C-alpha cells in the first residue's frame, strides 16, 4: 500500500473563497493509504514546497496529491520539489480544484463537494502510479530557418553568430523578401535596400549559414532536437558552380511577357531572369512556364550566349535531406487579393494601385526609375487619393478582421514622400482611425500633416469611378464636416490588408504547429512565450505570427534566435517518460495505432515472444519514446487493448472514474 500525502492549496482566496479547504483535507485523510493531509495558503510558495518536502521525508510518503491550480501552471514546480525530497517526480498528481472547480462554481457547498471528489480521484490514481524515468536524446546542433526575408535573415545571423550552423530555405530565387521591394522605411526614411542588402550579403558570406534558395521544405519528420527535413531544391536550369552572374543570358531571352514579381507586375521580365540587381545568389533562374525552350523545344538562345556553359535545360529538382535541432518559421506575408473590391476599380483601372505597387513606382530601381507616373499613360499625376484599411478590420468574407498594423505608417510615409518630391501633387488620405503607436511614429504622421500639407479626411471612400477623360472620380465621406465629397483624382492608392503567405498553412501541417483562423502561426503563450510555437522545437519569427513592422520583426527575429540558441546549447534533452507502450502479449500487429499517431512514433518489428509457454515470432508495435508526445490517440485506436500510456494507464483512469462514482 502506498503512503500518500494530500496538500490542499487555498491559492489565497482564489480557491479558499469557494471551497472549504480544511474540509477537503479532512475528507482526504479518510481515504485509504492517506497518511498525511493538510491545507496551506500558497502551496507553490517556498514555505508550501518545504511543507511538502518535510512531509515526504518525515512520513516516508511514496506518493503525493496536490489539490491546487491546473497542472499547466505548477505541475513542474511540485514535481521538482518532490524530486528534491527524494520522491520520483511522477509520483505526484494534481487535482485541479481551481480552474475546474472554484473558478466555475459560486456556491461554496457545491464547490467543496466537487473538490473532494477531484481529490479522491487523484488519490485513487496515485495508488496506481509507478516511478518513471525520463530518457535522453542528443540535440542536433543545427537550425533550419524557413523563409529568407528580413525575419529569416536576422534570425539566421543571430544564431550563426552564436556559433551554430543555420540553413535558410527560401522559396523564391533570392533572399530579401518583401523588405527588398520597399523604397524607404518609416519613421526615419532610410532606404530599405541600403539597410537590407548588407544583411543579405552577411548571411550569404557567413561560414555557418547555408542558403537554399528556389527551394521548399517538402517533409518534416522527428521532434525537438532531432528533426529530419527533406528540402526540394527546384531546378533553376543553371549550374550554380559555373555561372558567373554576368547576366548576358537574360538580355538575350526573347520571352518577355511574364509579369515581374519583384515590381509587383508593373513591368515584365524575361523567362531567364535575376529578380533584382542585388539578388543573392546573383545567378539567374529559368522560369520553365515562360521559357520557349521548355514549351516548344526550340530557342535555347541563352544557352548559346552563355560563355561558360552554365545553362542546363535537363537539370532536375533535387531532394536534400538534412538534420536539425530547431526549426524557425519565418514565412512572412502577402497582400490580400482585391478581386472582390469592385467598388475601388482595382481590377479595371491601372491607376488604382496597391501600396506595395506604389513602393515600386517610387523606387529608383523600379519600372519607372523612381519617377511617379500614372501607370495608364505615364503622365505626371496632379491629385492622388489614399484609402486606408482596405480589407482590414472588416467582418465579411472578403475582409480580414484584424488591423494590418503597418498601413497607417506607410501611408503617411508615401504621402510625405510624394509631397516632398512633387509639391505640386495634392494628396488626400481617407482614414477611419490613424493608429500610430510606436517610437517617433505619431510625430512622423503629424509631420505629414503639418509640414507636408497632406490632406487627411476622416471617412471611408464609398466608390471609385472611371471617367471618360481617363481620370478617376472618388466618392467619399468627410464625417467631421458632415459632407459627401466628390474628388477628381489621377491615382488611387489602396492600403491593402496583409495576410500570411500562402505557403504557411502547408508548412504548419508539416510541422504540426497550430495556426489561428487567419492562418497566422499561434504562439505557445500570447504574452509569456510569444516566439515559440506550442510544438516543441518550432519557433516563430516575423509576420508569419501576426502583422508587424520592420523594427518589431527584427526584434522578434532576435528573440526567436535566442530561444533557438538556448536549445542548441544543450547537449541532451530529457524526454517525456509518459509515453505509449504496447503490451507484447496483447498486440496483434494490426497497424491501427500507427495510422492514428500524429507524430509517426510507431513502427512494427518482428519479435520473438513467449506466450503461455509457446515461443513464436510476431509482428509487434514499437513506440519510439523520443518521438511519442503522449497524446494517447493510439491507446484508443488499439482494438485489443494492447497500447497503454505510461502515467495515464487505462487502469489509472478507470480508478479515477470509480473514485468519483463510488
Amino acid at each position, binding site marked *: 500500500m502506498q503512503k500518500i500525502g494530500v496538500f490542499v492549496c487555498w491559492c489565497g482566496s482564489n480557491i479558499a473563497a469557494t471551497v472549504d479547504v480544511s474540509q477537503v483535507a479532512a475528507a482526504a485523510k479518510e481515504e485509504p493509504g492517506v497518511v498525511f493531509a493538510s491545507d496551506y495558503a500558497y502551496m507553490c510558495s517556498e514555505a508550501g514546497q518545504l511543507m511538502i518536502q518535510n512531509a515526504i521525508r518525515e512520513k516516508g510518503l511514496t506518493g503525493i496529491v496536490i489539490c491546487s491550480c491546473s497542472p499547466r501552471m505548477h505541475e513542474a514546480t511540485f514535481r521538482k520539489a518532490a524530486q528534491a525530497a527524494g520522491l520520483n517526480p511522477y509520483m505526484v498528481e494534481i487535482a485541479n480544484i481551481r480552474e475546474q472547480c472554484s473558478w466555475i462554481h459560486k456556491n461554496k457547498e457545491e464547490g467543496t463537494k466537487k473538490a473532494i471528489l477531484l481529490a479522491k480521484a487523484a488519490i485513487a490514481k496515485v495508488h496506481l502510479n509507478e516511478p518513471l524515468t525520463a530518457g535522453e536524446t542528443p540535440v542536433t546542433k543545427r537550425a533550419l530557418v524557413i523563409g529568407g526575408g528580413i525575419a529569416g535573415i536576422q534570425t539566421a545571423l543571430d544564431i550563426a553568430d552564436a556559433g551554430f550552423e543555420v540553413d535558410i530555405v527560401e522559396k523564391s530565387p533570392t533572399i530579401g523578401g518583401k523588405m527588398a521591394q520597399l523604397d524607404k522605411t518609416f519613421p526615419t526614411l532610410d532606404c530599405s535596400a541600403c539597410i537590407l542588402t548588407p544583411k543579405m550579403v552577411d548571411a550569404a558570406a557567413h561560414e555557418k549559414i547555408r542558403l537554399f534558395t528556389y527551394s521548399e521544405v517538402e517533409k518534416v519528420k522527428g521532434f525537438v532536437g532531432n528533426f529530419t527535413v527533406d528540402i526540394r531544391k527546384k531546378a533553376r536550369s543553371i549550374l550554380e558552380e559555373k555561372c558567373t552572374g554576368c547576366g548576358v543570358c537574360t538580355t538575350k531571352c526573347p520571352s518577355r511577357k511574364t509579369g515581374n514579381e519583384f515590381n509587383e507586375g508593373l513591368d515584365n521580365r524575361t523567362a531567364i531572369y535575376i529578380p533584382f540587381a542585388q539578388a543573392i545568389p546573383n545567378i539567374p533562374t529559368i522560369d520553365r512556364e515562360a521559357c520557349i525552350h521548355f514549351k516548344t523545344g526550340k530557342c535555347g538562345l541563352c544557352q548559346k550566349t552563355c560563355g561558360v556553359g552554365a545553362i542546363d535545360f535537363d537539370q532536375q529538382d533535387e531532394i536534400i535531406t538534412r538534420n536539425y535541432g530547431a526549426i524557425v518559421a519565418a514565412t512572412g506575408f502577402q497582400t490580400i487579393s482585391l478581386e472582390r473590391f469592385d467598388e475601388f476599380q482595382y481590377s479595371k483601372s491601372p491607376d488604382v494601385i496597391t501600396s506595395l505597387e506604389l513602393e515600386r513606382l517610387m523606387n529608383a530601381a523600379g519600372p519607372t526609375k523612381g519617377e511617379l507616373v500614372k501607370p495608364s499613360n505615364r503622365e505626371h499625376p496632379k491629385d492622388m487619393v489614399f484609402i486606408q484599411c482596405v480589407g482590414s478590420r472588416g467582418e465579411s468574407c472578403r475582409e480580414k478582421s484584424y488591423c494590418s498594423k503597418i498601413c497607417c505608417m506607410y501611408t503617411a510615409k508615401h504621402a510625405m514622400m510624394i509631397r516632398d518630391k512633387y509639391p505640386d501633387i495634392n494628396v488626400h488620405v481617407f482614414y*477611419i482611425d490613424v493608429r500610430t503607436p510606436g517610437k517617433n511614429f505619431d510625430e512622423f504622421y503629424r509631420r505629414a500633416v503639418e509640414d507636408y500639407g497632406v490632406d487627411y479626411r476622416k471617412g471611408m471612400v464609398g466608390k471609385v469611378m472611371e471617367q471618360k477623360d481617363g481620370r478617376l472620380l472618388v*466618392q467619399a465621406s468627410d*464625417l467631421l464636416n458632415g459632407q459627401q465629397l466628390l474628388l477628381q483624382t489621377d491615382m488611387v492608392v489602396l492600403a491593402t490588408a496583409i495576410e500570411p503567405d500562402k505557403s504557411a498553412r502547408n508548412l504548419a501541417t508539416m510541422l504540426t504547429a497550430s495556426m489561428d483562423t487567419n492562418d497566422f502561426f499561434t504562439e505557445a503563450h500570447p504574452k509569456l512565450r510569444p516566439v515559440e510555437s506550442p510544438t516543441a522545437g518550432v519557433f516563430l519569427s516575423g509576420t508569419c505570427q501576426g502583422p508587424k513592422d520592420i523594427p518589431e520583426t527584427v526584434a522578434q527575429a532576435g528573440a526567436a534566435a535566442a530561444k533557438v540558441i538556448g536549445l542548441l546549447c544543450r547537449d541532451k534533452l530529457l524526454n517525456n517518460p509518459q509515453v505509449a507502450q504496447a503490451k507484447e502479449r496483447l498486440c496483434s500487429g494490426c497497424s491501427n495505432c500507427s495510422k492514428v499517431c500524429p507524430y509517426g512514433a510507431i513502427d512494427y518489428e518482428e519479435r520473438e515472444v513467449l506466450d503461455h509457454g509457446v515461443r513464436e515470432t510476431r509482428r509487434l508495435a514499437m513506440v519510439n519514446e523520443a518521438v511519442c508526445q503522449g497524446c494517447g490517440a493510439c491507446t484508443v485506436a488499439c482494438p485489443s487493448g494492447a497500447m497503454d500510456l505510461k502515467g495515464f494507464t487505462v487502469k489509472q483512469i478507470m480508478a479515477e472514474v470509480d473514485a468519483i462514482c463510488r
Partner: protein
Amino acid sequence: MREEILRISGVNPSKCMKCGKCTATCPAFEKMEYHPHQFVDMVKNNQISPLLESESLYCCMTCLACEERCPRGVKPQKLIEAVQVIKLRASGANRLKPQDVAERLDPSLPQQALMAAFRKYSR
C-alpha cells in the same frame, strides 16, 4: 422603441466603427438630413424622435449599397426601414394583408418593391 427597432431590423448598431463608408456610398446623401451612419449612431443612442420626424426617413432608395459595402456588416438600410415600419405601424396605416397580394400583383412592379411593401405593411 429602440429595442423594437433593433428587433425588427436584426441590426446591432454597436458593431459600427464609424468609418462612414455607408454614407460615402449612399446615392441619396444630398436629400438626407440624417445620413446612414447617423441613423446607426442615433438609434444606438436612443435618439429616435428626430429620426421619426425627419424627411430622411423617406429618402432611402433601398439600393442596399450601404449594406453591401459596410465592412462591419451593420446593414444601415435595415435600420432605416425598421424606423419607417415603427412609424407606419404606430399610425395604423397597416394596409397590406398577405391574402390581398394576389389581386394587386402588377407585372411591371419590381419584385423589390413588393418585398419592401410586405416588410413595411405587414406585421
